[in-house]
Every structure is written in C-alpha cells, then in structure tokens.
C-alpha cells in the first residue's frame, strides 16, 4: 500500500518537475532564440561571479533568463490597481496555470516498467478517458485569463480577457474535432493505448504513426493548439500594439511570471499532445520490446534499454515541437481579429468536420 502511494506520488511529482523545467528552458530558448532569428545578441549580461567568461565560454544568457529574471520578478512589488477585485486578481494567474499543469497528468512518457514487483506505466495517471480529461482541463483554462482581465479594473485588460475567452472557445471546437477523428481511428480514449497502437510498421518500413493516417487532424491540432496558447500569430488577447499587454496589463512581479509560465506550459502541452497523438509518443521507429527490427535485420536489446530509449524519443519529439512553435511565433505576423475568427470558424471547423466524416466512412468501410 505504502509503496504504491509512493510510486503514484513520484510519478506525479516527476512529471510536474519535468514540465516546469521544460517551460523554463523554453523561456530561455524564446529569448535567446528570438535574438538569433532577428540577428540580435540577446540576453548576455548576467553571470555568476563572471564564471563563464573566466572559463572562456560565450554568455548564452542562461543566467539571465533562468536565475536573474525570476529573482527580479519575485522580488518586485506586487501591485494591485485601485478598484481591482483583490481576491480574483490574485487568484486569476493560478486559475490559468493550474488546469494546464493538471492536463499533463495523462500524457504517457514511456512504456510500462516493473519496480519492486509493481508494474506500472510511465504516465502519472493512466486514465481510460484521458482524452476527455485533457479536453476538460483545457476548457477550464479559459477562466484564468478571462478573470485576470476582468479583475484588473482596466479596460484594455477587460478587452484582452474577452478576446482570450472568445478565441479559446472558438479554437476548442477545431481542436475537439481533430481529436474526435483521432478517437474514431484508434477506437480508444486512453493516451497510453493510442501510443501502443502506433507501434510497429506498415509495408515493413513506415512507422505506424498517426501522422500518416490523420495528417489533416495533425495540422488542425497543432494550429488550434497554438491558438489556445494565445501566442503569435494568435496573440490577440495580449497584442501590445492595441491593448498594452491585454489581460495581464495590470500584473507585475510574481503573478505576471505565473502568466508567462502558463504560456510556456501550454506550448509544452500542445507539443506533447501532437507527439502523443501523431508521432508515436514514446515509440521509436522499428524498435520493439525485444530490440530493433528493420528489413529482416535484428539487434537484440534488453527491455530497460528499450524503455529508456522510448522516454528519450518522447522528449526529443516534444522539444522539437516546442521549438517549432517558437519558430512559428517569431516568423509570422499577428492576425487581425476578424481574420482570426474567420480562420477558426470558416476554415478549421469545416475542415475538421470534413476530416471527421471522411474518417468515419473509412472506419466503417474498413470494419465491414
């Protein structure tokens, strides 16, 4: 009993720490990477006792973004504007962060392992209805931004909050349609089962990844997911040229840091969902439980090595899609509001519906 509790707690805590650290590293990549993209130098000032330059290393800005910035933010004055709703103003950042963090609970990062006679999957909570759970968590995420905007007693913030909730509700539909087509394909709501189904190959060569049977759904999920995370080109809720900073105009210090962390956690969530649903999750191409099989050749591997390689492959894919989202964010300009709504309702939703109908026809024909 005790060891089961300990295993459950460790699974949850490890996932949480991995996600928080990934978000922080993404923040660094966003700052230094955007500098590279725009031919700037970027963060290069802070260092610990000049250690890096003494060793002759260039300054990568890691101390800036991972140490100096958080210290600065959490020691700043926490300002609440006059006439604001104090309780909701304080609650809103956490209301935004919490649903995103709990959504990671059903994302599988590896195959099942056995420790001290207890066999379990490398996923914090192996729910049978994991897909519904994620949709519910994303749906609840609307409140943080919306209430943050409202509680600030600032018109720009309120406009940002309204835009955020309208945008998130609109793109949730496209996201849901993409996921429903995927459920119809795999016939299960469990993320771990979906990943297992993607093991093996077609025609002896092509990995059985979801992208090859649901390419449209993959694009839909990635696009709608980026819109859900409210980042450029979908950053209308915080567009600084119109709304100062949108829903977090009146936030400073630690609370603003929590909003920023939410952004990057959402990027990581979208990357993990795309990886899990369409790129085989922890599956490595041509790797089975006993080793590599490719075109008749076979390399035997111990099971623990297979599991470790699976976990590494999951994180490589996740980091790839995080970086892809950040690259898109620094490449595309922002949509206009009417373009955003038209894109969501008149392109993504019809395409999602057509994809669903086509999937349903194929599933029925293949089943009969």
């Amino acid at each position, binding site marked *: 009993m005790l060891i089961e509790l300990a295993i459950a707690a460790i699974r949850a805590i490890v996932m949480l720490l991995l996600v928080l650290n990934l978000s922080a590293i993404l923040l660094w990549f966003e700052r230094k990477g955007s500098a590279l993209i725009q031919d700037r130098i970027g963060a290069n000032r802070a260092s610990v006792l000049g250690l890096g330059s003494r060793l002759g290393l260039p300054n990568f800005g890691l101390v800036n973004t991972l140490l100096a910035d958080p210290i600065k933010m959490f020691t700043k004055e926490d300002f609440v504007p006059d006439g604001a709703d104090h309780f909701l103003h304080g609650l809103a950042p956490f209301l935004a962060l919490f649903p995103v963090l709990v959504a990671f609970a059903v994302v599988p990062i590896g195959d099942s392992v056995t420790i001290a006679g207890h066999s379990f999957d490398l996923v914090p909570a192996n729910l*049978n209805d994991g897909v519904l759970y994620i*949709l*519910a968590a994303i*749906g609840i995420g609307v409140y943080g931004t919306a209430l943050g905007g409202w509680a600030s007693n600032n018109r720009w913030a309120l406009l940002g909050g309204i835009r955020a909730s309208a945008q998130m*509700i609109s793109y949730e539909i496209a996201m849901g349609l993409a996921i429903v087509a995927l459920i119809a394909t795999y016939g299960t709501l469990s993320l771990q089962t979906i990943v297992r189904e993607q093991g093996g190959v077609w025609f002896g060569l092509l990995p059985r990844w979801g992208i090859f049977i649901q390419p449209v759904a993959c694009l839909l999920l990635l696009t709608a997911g980026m819109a859900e995370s409210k980042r450029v080109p979908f950053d209308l809720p915080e567009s600084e040229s119109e709304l100062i900073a949108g829903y977090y105009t009146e936030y400073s210090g630690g609370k603003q840091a929590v909003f920023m962390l939410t952004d990057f956690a959402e990027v990581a969530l979208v990357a993990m969902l795309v990886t899990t649903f369409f790129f085989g999750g922890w599956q490595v191409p041509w790797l089975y439980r006993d080793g590599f099989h490719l075109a008749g050749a076979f390399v035997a591997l111990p099971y623990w090595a297979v599991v470790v390689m699976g976990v590494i492959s999951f994180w490589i894919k996740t980091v790839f899609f995080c970086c892809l989202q950040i690259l898109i964010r620094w490449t595309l300009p922002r949509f206009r509001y*009417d373009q955003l709504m038209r894109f969501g309702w008149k392109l993504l939703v019809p395409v999602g519906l057509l994809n669903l109908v086509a999937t349903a026809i194929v599933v029925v024909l293949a089943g009969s």
Partner: protein
Amino acid sequence: MPLGLFIFLAAIAVLSALGVILQRNPVHCLLALVLTLLDMAVMFIGLGAVTVGFLQAIVYVGAIMVLFLFVIWLLNLQAEDRGGSRQLALKFFGVVGAAVLIAELFVFLVKAPSPAGMNHPPPLFGSIASLAGALFTNYLIAFEATSLLLLVAVIGAVALARHPAAAGSLSPAQGAQPVASGGSEARPVTPEHKAGGMG
C-alpha cells in the same frame, strides 16, 4: 466512492451553491456556480459515470459558464442593490419555489430504494462506449432530433445577429458573423453607416 470523499465533495457543493445565492457580485456568484458544477463533475466520475462527469466539465464549465461570463460583462451587470419595490414579490416567490423543491426532494428520498436492494451496474456502465451505443441505437431518433433543434437554434442566432441593412449589400461571407465573435466585435460597416459617420 469512499464515504469520506463523498462528504467532502457534498460539503463543497453545498457551500459553493450557497455562495451562488448569497454573494452580491455577479462574477463571484458565477465563479461559485462554476465550482458547484466542477464539484458535481467530480462526483459523477467518482460514482462511475465517467463520461457524464467529463462532459459536465467540458460543456458546462468550459463553455456555458464562459458564455454566462460574457453576458455579465456585455450587459455590464453591477453588484445588486438591496431594496426596491420588487423585493417583496421576489421573496414570496422564492419561498414558494424553495418549498416546492424541498417537498420534491423529500418525496424522492422517501421513495428511493435502499442501496442494499440495488443491482450493481454492468462493468462498462458509464463508459463512452455504452453511452454512444445507447445514443446511436435505442435513442437515435431523439438524438438526431435534438441535434436538428440545436442546428436550427445556431442558424437562428446567426440570422438574428446579422445586420438588417447588411443582408442585401454584403456577400454572405462577410454578413454571417459566427455566434461566438458576436457582441464584442463591431458589425460590418455598411456604406450608409460610413456616410453617416463622415457627414
């Protein structure tokens, strides 16, 4: 569901439901309602109706309550002021309504069979497969009729949201604004409006 968990959830449900009716600020009331609905979703899941529980969270908390929030903001509702002539009538009907609800609850509790006599639900009860099986076989006509009704409602809402003057002069692509963007966004500017504004 363990009894302790049920008591905990039930206490939250009662307290947050009280919060809905006792607070004055409509946004705070709405948040209390959100908490009530989420709490009920957790209860559904704990009792084995997993699909219903998650749908409750997705549909009611994730969508309908956000629309309530929109309505509160766009109508600019303020904290209610006590007093006024309608208060007495409101109180009277409130008491009558509460009495009816309590009587109903009492009858329901008296007539409810004891837990010992109940059959255990089948193993897949409450799963999305059993729900979908029921919806698409036994209740197919009711399901499709409901879908049609909702479609009619959506089209009706879009038709109402269209600007009367815009119907003739604009192409359908510009005239039909989606429902969710309505309200916060300005309607398409018609030539008449432009001329009026400039003159």
